[in-house]
């Protein structure tokens, strides 16, 4: 099956390939040759298959693989692999653009969708870390962004176990991780000596958040 051209895959053959992929993941560890071939083929299908359904399906599978199925080693190797692959296709598209406009546009379109959805999921999942990064950085991280006006604010009063209180203004589209990082950061500044303790949010007053 890996000898089939990425352009020629149908939904059914893609399904078979995805099964082969899951099978290799379960059976072998990372870095197996088969796995690399299968993953490369999945990338090629996502970018080169003329059928939008097949491409979309392969993209979804890749996103899921890179975000959920991996046995993370916390080394960010897979994140690097994901970005490297997307950038690789974008480079090709940039070279191809003057030669074959439509083919190039289709690659760019797919790369954009894949990248955006990947980053969005990643941002949510790692929202605590991104926020901590923002709070501990010595300069404002988003200097090129002009904030949209009138974005609704959520005001949250946080109470510590020792009854210290502080209010936090967050935006409606911020994540629970953002709130946790803000409160952790504040708590850290209050408790210099025990600053390494992590906090865990508790919804109180019988109100059930989530």
């Amino acid at each position, binding site marked *: 099956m890996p000898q089939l051209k990425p352009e020629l895959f149908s939904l059914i053959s893609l399904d078979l390939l995805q099964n082969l992929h899951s099978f290799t993941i379960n059976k072998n560890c990372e870095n197996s040759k088969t796995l690399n071939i299968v993953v490369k083929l999945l990338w090629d299908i996502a970018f080169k298959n003329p059928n939008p359904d097949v491409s979309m399906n392969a993209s979804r599978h890749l996103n899921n693989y890179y975000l959920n199925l991996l046995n993370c080693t*916390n080394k960010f190797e897979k*994140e*690097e692999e994901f*970005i490297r692959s997307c*950038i690789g296709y*974008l*480079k090709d598209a*940039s070279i191809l*653009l003057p030669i074959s*406009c439509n083919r190039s*546009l289709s690659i*760019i*379109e797919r790369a*954009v969708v894949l*990248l*955006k959805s*990947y*980053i969005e*999921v*990643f*941002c*949510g999942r*790692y*929202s*605590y870390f*991104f926020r901590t990064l923002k709070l501990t950085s010595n300069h404002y991280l*988003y*200097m*090129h*962004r002009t904030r949209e006006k009138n974005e*609704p604010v*959520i*005001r*949250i*009063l*946080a*109470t*510590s*176990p020792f009854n210290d209180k502080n209010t936090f203004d967050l*935006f*409606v*589209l911020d*994540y*629970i*991780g*953002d*709130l*946790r990082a803000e409160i952790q950061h504040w708590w850290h500044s209050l408790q210099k000596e025990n600053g390494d*303790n*992590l*906090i*865990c*949010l*508790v*919804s109180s*007053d*019988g*109100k059930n*958040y*989530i």
Partner: protein
Amino acid sequence: MILFAQFIYFFNKSDHEIPFDWDDKRLLESGFKDVQLNSISFKICKQTLSKASNNLSLSKEFFEEFKLKNPKNLLLERNNFELLFILMQQLEMINNSNLKAQILSRNIWEIILMLPTSYDLIQKFQMLQSNYIDSVDKKIFESNTINDDQEQFNKLYHDIFSSNSNQKLIYACHLVENYKKLNKHWQYIFFETGGVKFLYKLFVDTVSSVKFKYEWTEWKQDCLATLLQVLFHFAIIKKEDNSNKFDW
């Protein structure tokens, strides 16, 4: 990885704990309201620095790694970042009537907005500020004038405001606006170091460089609008010595 969490403080039974893997839920979806004051409390976990359930290590090493290698930062690496701008420009130049190309270039811009600001550019702005402070010091001690350093500032402005990419120019203009919001001295620094003058020239040059209809792209118009906006915001300030004359 072993999770060892021991909760030191007692809390009511009606309270319920929000686990770490709910970090990815939006506040609005989680019952927080934008029309009222919401309240939340927290407790302190005594735990080792790792968490098994979703492989998020909480160690300092992990955080250092995360800083460098999260996907946003990977895209910010010089070559990758440059590629995104090249693509936007290529798509801009294709054809005004190619709607798909126009939309895609905007989509890439949206990705740029998701990333932190390019550190290269931040450094140049920091350099501008520190050079300004140096030149003010020199002015005091050596009766030197800022004008002597003008060339050096001009070179920096050339690096910051790329005249060959509309997108880069818009990007840099947004930085100028934000610096102005964050630092009240900034508008003087920008003015005194010739930034306003530089942008004015750039604006005039850009307008006069448009000769053909195909060059009048949407991005070009956005770029000119952004330049105008910056000039407008800076042109209404007075110089510190109270002479409000504006000599270009």
